[in-house]
């Protein structure tokens, strides 16, 4: 090394290596006692007692962590509140929209996330002086040793008491080995921060662009290529969708005038119970199959109010007015058409069931009600 290059390379610090945690503790204490302020200690693992030996003040990072945590809990609670109250209110389990206990786990997680991630960011910004992404000690023989099996101390040239010869002697007296200077990286000093290097920025933009394009094509194109589209695109029309098949461009069609769709035959005796009683005839025979079907539908739709044996003994326990029994003489003498009419149109507190029970099922239920009535009012001949 010639005199010339020595001058060109500005000095960052003098470093020294120590072998044991106790010797580094001693060295740190002696260094701060000697009045040096700008020095740092590097150890391969946390050594207890360094804070007081280096006379470090309480770290300010804790305050930042607290503020970030507060930010986390406030943003999480207000975001969830906004969603559940105004943006997309959903009734969940019959609870109020603003059910704070359900927010606690998520808010807790967001608090921890923001507090820890932003604390790390704050640490990088404050201690590494972002956007500086390098450090003079990086990639030195000193750093290689103190990050594996040795303990090191570095006294910086920016310290007001710094004098290269004195500091080297001081560290040697403390028992340090490999005492030597570390210089700033010449290239970095000349070119400024590497993060603003056009080449670096160009590579960063290319990576960002590539990732964006690949993501866009994967999500918007690749997933729709047959047959890899996971059935997301299907050749059917959904409700409210337009269609080019028809001249008016409307996907949803109305029936042709004067026709009736299968299973949508209108009920002709609306408001006319007498006509229903007179003209309607049960089309089903009391076969075991029909009775089974009637029983299933009766137990599903009728028994909650009318009771399992049609005696009006509901399971509602007073939450709804009890309906009359179907075992009365009146109902037993009704023609099937009358019962069909009541099921279809409803009566008093009973709502119409035409939307819930298909016509054939209604007839099957009536067959089953007849069975229940017969069972409760058996004739002598039935018992033989």
């Amino acid at each position, binding site marked *: 090394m010639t005199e010339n290059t020595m001058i060109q390379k500005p000095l960052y610090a003098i470093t020294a290596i120590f072998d044991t945690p106790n010797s580094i503790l001693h060295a740190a204490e002696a260094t701060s006692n000697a009045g040096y302020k700008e020095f740092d200690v590097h150890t391969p693992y946390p050594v*207890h007692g360094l804070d*007081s030996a280096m006379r470090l003040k309480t770290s300010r990072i*804790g305050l930042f962590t*607290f503020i970030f945590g507060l930010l986390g809990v406030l943003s999480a609670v207000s975001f969830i509140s906004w969603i559940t109250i105004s943006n997309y209110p959903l009734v969940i*389990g019959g609870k109020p929209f603003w059910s704070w206990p*359900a927010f606690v786990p998520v808010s807790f997680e967001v608090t921890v996330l923001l507090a820890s991630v932003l604390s790390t960011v704050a640490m990088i910004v404050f201690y590494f002086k972002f956007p500086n992404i390098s450090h003079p000690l990086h990639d030195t023989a000193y750093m290689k040793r103190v990050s594996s099996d040795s303990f090191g101390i570095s006294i910086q040239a920016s310290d007001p008491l710094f004098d290269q010869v004195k500091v080297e002697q001081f560290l040697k007296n403390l028992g340090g080995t490999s005492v030597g200077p570390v210089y700033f990286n010449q290239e970095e000093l000349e070119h400024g921060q590497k993060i603003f290097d056009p080449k670096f920025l160009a590579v960063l933009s290319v990576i960002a662009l590539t990732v964006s394009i690949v993501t866009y094509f994967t999500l918007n194109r690749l997933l729709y290529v047959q047959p890899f589209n996971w059935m997301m695109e299907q050749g059917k029309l959904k409700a409210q969708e337009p269609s080019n098949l028809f001249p008016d461009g409307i996907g949803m069609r109305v029936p042709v005038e004067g026709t009736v769709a299968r299973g949508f035959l209108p009920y002709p005796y609306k408001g006319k119970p007498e006509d229903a009683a007179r003209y309607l005839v049960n089309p089903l025979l009391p076969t075991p199959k029909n009775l089974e079907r009637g029983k299933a539908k009766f137990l599903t739709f009728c028994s909650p109010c009318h009771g399992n044996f049609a005696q009006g003994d509901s399971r509602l326990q007073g939450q709804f007015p009890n309906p009359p029994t179907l075992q009365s003489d009146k109902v037993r003498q009704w023609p099937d058409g009358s019962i069909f009419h009541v099921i279809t149109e409803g009566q008093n507190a009973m709502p119409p069931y035409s939307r819930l029970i298909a016509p054939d099922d209604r007839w099957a239920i009536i067959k089953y009600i007849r069975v229940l009535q017969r069972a409760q009012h058996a004739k002598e001949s039935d018992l033989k």
Partner: protein
Amino acid sequence: MSDHHAADRVNKPLPKKLYITGWILTGIGLLLYVLGYLTDESHAAFANVVNFLFLASIGVGSLFLIALEYLAGAVWSVPMRRVNEFLASLIPFAVLLALPIFFHLHNVFQWASPEIVSTDTILQAKSPYLNVNFFVLRFVVIFGTWIVFLYFLKRNSVLQDKDKDQKHTRFNIRISAMFMPVFAFGLTFLAIDWALSLEPHWYSTVYGVYFFSGTALAGIAAATFCIVLLYKHGYFPQLRRDHFYSLGTLMFVFVNFWAYIAFSQFMLVWYANMPEETYWFVARWKNGWEYISILLIIVHFVVPYFALLSQDAKMNLPRLKFITVWLLFAHFLDLYWLVMPTYSASPVCGWIEIGFPVLIVGLVIIMFGWKMKRYNLIPIGDPKLQKGLEFHL
């Protein structure tokens, strides 16, 4: 460096005045117990359950900390371990404190009253577990095993003071390893038997953990309070900020752990919203109990959380002293909140509530006065002592 200093702390007894105060308080406490049982049997029995659980949790919480120190190979807590040992010695007194309740089991526990069980199919179905004989057997087994472990852990620690032999530490590590599962099961059964079974229809699978979080906190708070007090009066001249910081951190951890578990228990019940589970919380949310519930959250979590949050707070001795008393009160309130709603539909606070803990305070003082006369306050024979005294953060 300071080898000789440790030996200075051999057998320094408590001031006589304090010792006598302890006896007076114990006497007053006993008198209040007798008065309580004479005037209002059932109320006294319920308050007795609260106080028994309080004393038992301080004792076994301290024993847990001793075992934890051995198992984790902790160094920083070695100089203060005797305080935990003295507090753990309260476990036999907890057994004595529970005795009056055994004569009033039918007043306290529904399942112990044959008239109620005969009309209740659920209690009949649970009777193979919830019956008086098995209950007493469990009590004997739980406390029997704990006292055996307490005896050996303490004996080895004291023997080491004399012969300074490392084999005692190795032996205690083995005992601690055996103690941990015994502690976990014993504490869970203790919580189920004495607190959960007060509402025998209710169940909560996290109840044992909930009880543990309070127990460990009570153990640390009691130990920290005694350590701070003894330090202030010159009994622990070698402790430093680093020791108090560690105690404060441990306390802070369990404040958070308690809140975490308490909320977990609440949230699952709240979310599922099933009548057979919610009624336990509903009972604590009406007739004035809602104020106690809110108070519990503030006293047991909010205040200690912010009081212990910063680094400086954990090393601030006046604050530590205040917050340990506060946390012990919080643990008492927690037990009161668990137990008393079964006794009364609205919160009660009479002379029984305020008077019964006097006995516990008296017992703790007597225990310290008695033990400090016989044993060293610092385990001078422990091989980790020097490292513990030189402990740095």
